[in-house]
Structure formats: structure tokens, C-alpha cells
């Protein structure tokens, strides 16, 4: 990188129109990705405020800081907002939307207008949910368990459920768009096994989005019907079966975990290769493990229900399948680690996030084994052990991947560099704060503190205070990027087209890219991650 001041390219997607119509009626996948980044960031802040309320309440054991009603609404709001409106769309709708056409050498997604529609559906779903949360609130937990949600809850269940129902369609449409795009729009020479692993991961994710989301949509609708019209689907007093709801709910909501983590794994494969200048170790295994996770992930849902009274034999089957899904995940971790071997490793912010991801995801994955193991799950399920476990996957995994990816492709999206030192500082704060928040929760769960407790026995207070202290550091660390990334959009140093020397097609066009991505259609002649040669600087400009 030379010292002289660079200028942004003369024409790029960001200066292709400035009016509100040029944004709200855009069909450019890159602009839609930016719309999504703004919307999910707003939802992330809201979900974070709910998290702060939860941690504040748990500072004291007697619940004197807020009422039980407020606390129950806070953890429900936190779950609903973070899962349906942040984590599920996070990487696919932002980085996936922006990068998949660029990575496979296409001008846009296969259905640009459907892509815009998916954003509008997201916004409408979010408005319903916001109405439910802010006008009275929702107190069912994000899991909507029946018959509590359909008969007993005195809150905005129907509006909240409709929000989740509507936003599901945006997820389905994004998945559909990706699958068609990946099948039909690859540039000449971009064979399946030359695709970046980020694209493979999104392909697997899209399959889950398309097959799983309709099930949750139907389930949510049944909840609304039972609540409003008193059908007897789930309420045993009307002949329904409350356990049926759990089967239907987890049939989607467990694979949904993979909707959140697979794209993040795709990001990590890109970061690890670029910042160690190495081809990924075992490309085929890493690519296929994504598909294996998506496939087996559909067969493990009832591991959330081992203490619900299911037959011990079904429990055994679901336990065994859950262990099976651990193998492809472990495979990825080993291959990423092996990729660093004899590489040329540079410690920049995105790489720090990638290394944090691998460490935290490993702990999250292994603690998942405690819950897949039938004999230990009985004690640990529905305690803080579970809360800690899935936050290691969702925050330590999914959000670390998202932030790492956001920093990595920030110059591609905005044409400007983020301030490297601020990136590293926030990365360290997030890592330290995260572990201090959630590690004590493993112990809390093991010693027996149940989830969703507004008040708790005094002996759990020390661990809860530690967790809240960690959460303040974590919250501060997560706020920093909001400011320095926002600042860099206007004031950041202008980036070269390929500041990291990365090999992917997305780096061979200008940063930011032109509206139609490439001036000449790229022709691919090499495998992914061919780092033995220096990259051609913006060859396709």
C-alpha cells in the first residue's frame, strides 16, 4: 500500500444515485445488502438493550431492580429480536447478499426484485414484532411453548408470532435466490469445486432456509389459531398435545442454529486462507461438511426434549444423531487449524476474529456434547449451562464470524479502510467480555440455576455478578465498531481495490464495485485460494 492518497473509483454502486428512491427501489444486491446491514444493526442494538436489562436484573438475587413481568418481557424480547431479526438474516442477508454474485462472477442475484421484496418483508415482519414488543410486550420466551403461549400468556403473542411468521418468508426468498444464483449464474470456469467455501456454506444454509422455514411458519400459524379461535392443536384441555408443538418448533429451530453458524463458518474459511496465504487444507472435506451439517441437522431436533417424557428409545436415536453432527463440525476446526501450518500468518483484525471464532466455537461445540449425552442432559437442560453453550455458538461463533467478515469486506463494501487499531481493541474487548459473561454461566448451570429466573437463590449471586461485569465489557466492545465503522464510511482512509491481497473474484473488481460488479465477465482458470502467486491487482476493472 503506497503512502499517496488514493481516490475512490469514478463510478461505483454507492455513487450510482443518491436519492431515497435510488436506495428504496434498488434491485442492486449490494445496495440491498447495505439496507440489510442498517436494519439488522438497529435490531441488534434493540436486542442488546434487552440483554442489558437481563444482566442488570440478575445483579441482585431478589429481583428488586425490575418486576417479573418486565424481566420476562426482556428475555423474550432479547431472544425474539436476536434470533429472528438479527442472527438468522445476519450473514446471509448482508455479506451473502453482497458477495455471492461477486464471488461467482455474476452481475447480480438471479432474482433482483425478489431480493428487494425479501428486505421489505423483513421490515414488515420487524414492524409487527416491534409493535408486539413495545406495545405491551411478549412474555412467552422466544420458544413460544404451548399451552403457555396459546392459553395462559397475557401478552402480545399473536402480533409477535405474526412478526416471526412474516420474517420467515424473507429468509425463504433469500435462500431461494441464492440456490438459483449458485446453480445458474456462475462465471465461465467457475466449477462447483472452484467455488469459495463461503458460497458452499451459503448453499447449505439456503437449503435449510427453504426446507425448514415453512415448518415454523405453519407452527406459528397453529399457535395463533389456537390462541384466537381456540382450536385444540396443542392445548390438552381441548384434546391437543403440547409436545407436538415442541416437535414442530424444534424441527425448524434446531436447523435454524445451522442457518446462523454455517455462513459464519464460510466466512472463517475465507479469512483463514487469506490471512495465512494458504489454500484451505482439505477443500472437499470442508465444503462437504457444510452439506453434511445441513442434512444431519434436520434429524436431531428432539434433543431439546429429552426430559419431556419421550420414550427412552427415541431419545437414544436423537442422541446418537446429535453426536454424528459433531463430526463434520470437528472436521472443519481441524482443517482450519491445519491451514495455518507453514502459512504466512498476518495478525489483522479479521484474522483475530477468525482465531477467536475457532477457539470459542470449539468450546461451544464440546459443551454441546454434554447436552447430547443423555445422562448429563437430564441435569443440565433448561439451566444456565444451556444458555452458556448456545451463546458460545451464537455469539462466540456466529457474531464473531459476522464481525470478522464485516471488517474483512468493509473496504469492499465502502471503499474505505476501518481504523486497524480500533478494530483490534474492540476485538480484544469482545473476546474478554464474552468469556467473562458466559463462562461463569456454565458453572451456574452445573450447580443448578434454571434458565429464565427473575429471582434466584443467593448462593448464585457471585457468578451472576461476574457475568454482568463481563456483559458490560462485551457491550462496550460491541458498541465500538458501530462508531468507528460508521466514522470510516465518511472519513476512513480510501482503500485499494484489494487491500488484503486476497484471491477471490470479489477482490478483482474495484472497491467499491461498479453497479454491475464487473466490466468484463471474469473467466476462472484456477482453483479457489491459489495463494502461491501474488494476486493481480483489480484485474477486471
Amino acid at each position, binding site marked *: 500500500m503506497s503512502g499517496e492518497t488514493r481516490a475512490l473509483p469514478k463510478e461505483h454502486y454507492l455513487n450510482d444515485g443518491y436519492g431515497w428512491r435510488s436506495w428504496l427501489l434498488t434491485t442492486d444486491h449490494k445496495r440491498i445488502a447495505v439496507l440489510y446491514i442498517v436494519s439488522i444493526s438497529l435490531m441488534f442494538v434493540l436486542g442488546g438493550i434487552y440483554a442489558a436489562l437481563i444482566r442488570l436484573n440478575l445483579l441482585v438475587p431478589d429481583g428488586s431492580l425490575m418486576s*417479573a413481568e418486565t424481566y*420476562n418481557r426482556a428475555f423474550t424480547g432479547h431472544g425474539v429480536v436476536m434470533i429472528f431479526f438479527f442472527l438468522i438474516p445476519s450473514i446471509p442477508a448482508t455479506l451473502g447478499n453482497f458477495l455471492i454474485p461477486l464471488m461467482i462472477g455474476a452481475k447480480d442475484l438471479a432474482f433482483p426484485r425478489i431480493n428487494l421484496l425479501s428486505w421489505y418483508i423483513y421490515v414488515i415482519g420487524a414492524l409487527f414484532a416491534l409493535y408486539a414488543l413495545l406495545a405491551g410486550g411478549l*412474555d412467552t*420466551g422466544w420458544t413460544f*411453548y404451548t399451552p403457555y403461549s396459546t392459553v*395462559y400468556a397475557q401478552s402480545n403473542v399473536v402480533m409477535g408470532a405474526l412478526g416471526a411468521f412474516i420474517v420467515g418468508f424473507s429468509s425463504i426468498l433469500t435462500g431461494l435466490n441464492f440456490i438459483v444464483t449458485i446453480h445458474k449464474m456462475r462465471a465461465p470456469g467457475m466449477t462447483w469445486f472452484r467455488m469459495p467455501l463461503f458460497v458452499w456454506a451459503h448453499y447449505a444454509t439456503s437449503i435449510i432456509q427453504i426446507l425448514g422455514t415453512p415448518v415454523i411458519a405453519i407452527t406459528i400459524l397453529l399457535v395463533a389459531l389456537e390462541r384466537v379461535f381456540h382450536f385444540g392443536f396443542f392445548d*390438552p384441555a381441548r384434546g391437543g398435545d*403440547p409436545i407436538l408443538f415442541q416437535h414442530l418448533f424444534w424441527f425448524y429451530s434446531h436447523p435454524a442454529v445451522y442457518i446462523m453458524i454455517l455462513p459464519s463458518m464460510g466466512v472463517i474459511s475465507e479469512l483463514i486462507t487469506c490471512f*495465512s496465504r*494458504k*489454500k484451505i*487444507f*482439505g*477443500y*472437499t472435506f470442508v465444503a462437504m461438511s457444510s452439506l453434511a451439517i445441513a442434512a444431519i441437522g434436520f434429524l436431531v431436533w428432539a434433543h431439546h426434549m429429552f*426430559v419431556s*417424557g*419421550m*420414550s*427412552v428409545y427415541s431419545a437414544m436415536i436423537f*442422541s446418537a444423531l446429535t*453426536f*454424528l453432527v459433531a463430526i463434520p463440525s*470437528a*472436521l472443519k476446526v481441524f482443517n482450519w*487449524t*491445519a491451514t*495455518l501450518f*507453514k*502459512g504466512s*500468518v*498476518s*495478525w489483522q483484525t479479521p484474522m483475530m476474529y477468525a*482465531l477467536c471464532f475457532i*477457539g470459542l466455537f470449539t468450546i461451544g461445540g*464440546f459443551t454441546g*456434547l*454434554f447436552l447430547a449425552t443423555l*445422562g*448429563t442432559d*437430564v*441435569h443440565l437442560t*433448561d439451566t444456565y449451562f444451556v444458555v452458556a453453550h448456545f451463546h458460545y455458538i451464537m455469539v462466540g461463533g456466529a457474531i464473531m464470524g459476522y464481525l470478522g467478515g464485516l471488517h474483512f469486506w468493509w473496504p469492499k463494501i465502502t471503499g474505505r479502510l476501518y481504523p486497524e487499531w480500533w478494530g483490534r481493541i474492540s476485538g480484544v474487548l469482545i473476546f474478554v467480555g464474552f468469556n467473562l459473561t458466559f463462562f461463569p454461566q456454565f*458453572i451456574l448451570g452445573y*450447580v*443448578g440455576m*434454571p*434458565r*429464565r429466573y427473575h*429471582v434466584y*437463590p443467593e*448462593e448464585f449471586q*457471585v*457468578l451472576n*455478578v461476574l457475568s454482568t461485569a463481563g456483559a458490560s465489557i462485551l457491550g462496550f466492545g460491541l458498541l465500538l465498531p458501530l462508531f468507528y465503522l460508521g466514522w470510516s464510511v465518511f472519513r476512513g482512509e480510501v482503500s485499494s481495490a484489494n487491500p488484503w491481497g486476497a484471491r477471490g473474484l470479489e477482490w478483482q473488481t474495484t472497491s467499491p464495485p461498479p453497479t454491475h460488479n464487473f466490466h468484463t465477465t471474469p473467466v476462472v482458470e484456477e482453483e479457489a485460494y*491459489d*495463494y*502461491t*502467486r*501474488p494476486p493481480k491487482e483489480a484485474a477486471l476493472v
Partner: protein
Amino acid sequence: MKGLPLLPERASSIAGEVDALFFTLVAITLLFSVGIAIALLYFAVRYRRRSEDDRPGEIHGSLALELVWSVIPLAIVVVIFAWGARLFFHINRPPDDAMTVSVVGKRWMWKLQHPTGQREINELHVPAGRAVRLVITSEDTIHSFFVPAFRIKKDAVPGRYTVAWFRATRPGTYHLFCAEYCGTEHSKMIGWVVVMEPEQYAVWLAGGPAPESPEKFGEKLFVELNCITCHRADSAGRGPVLQGLFGRGVRLAGGETVTADEAYIRESIVTPAAKVVAGYQPVMPTYLGQVSEEQILALVAYIQSLRVPSGETAPAPAGTKVSMNEGGTARSR
């Protein structure tokens, strides 16, 4: 603030077994996490970029390595799976000599009843050393009966029975929690399990007025609700004979056989048409909504107590099979 507990109390016969498996998993987790962290950091430092022109050579991968790091974890999880499944079977199979305590969850309290009739709320007194079998249900939403010191947890599901058991080993007072979110006061649906020496328990039982046993209460209901009109002891009624029914296999109109356990009898009371005994007409009306969960439990206890009158030889009620359905008795519901 009160101390920093790192280990839950260990007060049941299975607690030690659960902990052994738990700490084995902790050891495996530490081994792999630390190993991976060391490898990552070592590679990231040892192979740090020394010059912008570094171009490391290409390594494609290694089939042998992929197999090694798939097969070794697979072998480990197979062992853990088998160990966990075996323990789970143990946790879910109450011993035959267990005393049965009925548990009804209701927002936001636990209602418990001893086999001798004593009722308690949010507090359960049990003798040490004796297996206690819990038959659990709920009157409203789903709850979950959780005693961390015993390492047991089982959902209380409205409309069905779930079963758990424990054998307390150490006298003391232990937390009882509701572990399934059930609304506003969920975190106050808590109580204590008081484990007593058997002699003390006997004294405790003897204190207070002599309660009505569940069987007696059930017998009264059996008459009041007119069950007795059809379920006669002499096989002349419109319904099956109930004497000696409990625990046996029952052949249904559809040809299959089910075991007459608590869940089956409960279902036959609230949805009689679901499993009709072979040779009978589905004429019984539903009692759904007319009897409370506690009344149903009393009826079940009464039917369980009905023995075949002595002197008669194997009057096996129509449609029943004497052989036990092994799989059925192991059912946890």
C-alpha cells in the same frame, strides 16, 4: 452474597454417576480445546508473516489426516453416547420397590402427595435410602421438576404422566426448582426436598391428623362418578373388569397390546375412545374437565390397588394378556 459454589451438592444414588460422566466430558473438552488453541497459536506465531512477499508453498490436504481426525472423534463420541444412554436408562427406570409420590405442577406451586395420603405444597419429605418414584403431571402449562442435588429433572406435562425417580443418600434440605418457563412467577415456583433418616420420616408421617390415602379417596370417587356401574368386579358390566388390571398387558380392539400403567389409565379416563379394550364397545363418556388431576391420580391409585379376589383362579379380564409387555413397562411416560 453467599459463597461461590462450584459443585452442586451430591445427594442421590445417581448423582455420583452423572458427575463421573460430566467430568469425563470436561476432561475431553479441555484436552481438545487446549490442544487446538495451542496448535492455532503456535502456527500463528511460528508462521507469522515476515515479509509482504511471503508466498508459502501449497498443501492440498491429506486423506489420511482427514480420516484420522474423523475416526478418532467418532470413536470417542460412540463411547460417550453409550455411557450416556446407559445412565439415561438407569435414570428412567424406577426400581420395583419404589414408593410412589404424585406430583402436580400448578402455576406457581408444586403439589405433592405421599402414598399414605399426606399432602404437601412446595416441600417434599422423603426417607434417605428408599427409592422414590414420582408420577408427575400439570394442571396448566408445562413445568419441570428439577432437584439439582439429585441430578434429576422431568417435565410436568398437562394431559399426561411422566415418571422420574431418585434414591436420596444424604439427609439434608435441597432445592426443588421449576425448570420450564411457566409465566410470571416461574422463578418462585420453587421449594425444598427434605431428606430424613427413615425413623424420622416415620415420625414425620405419624404427625398430624391421619390423612385419607389416595386409594380410599379414589374408591369414594369411583362410586361418586358412577364408574362402578359399568366396571364391575364380576365381569357382567359394560366395561372391562379392573381387578388385577394394573401392570398387565391389555389387548385393544385394534389388535395391539398396551401395558396398563398410570398413563394408560389416565388416558382411558379422559379420552376413553383412544384405546378401547378388545371385545368392548366405545360407550364410555369422557371425564375430561370433570375430574381434577389430583382426583385422576386418586382413581389411578385405587385401580392400582384392586387385586384379584383370592380364591378365584386367573379371571383375566377379557382382552388382557397375562404376559408382560417388556418394552411397555420401560416406557417413561
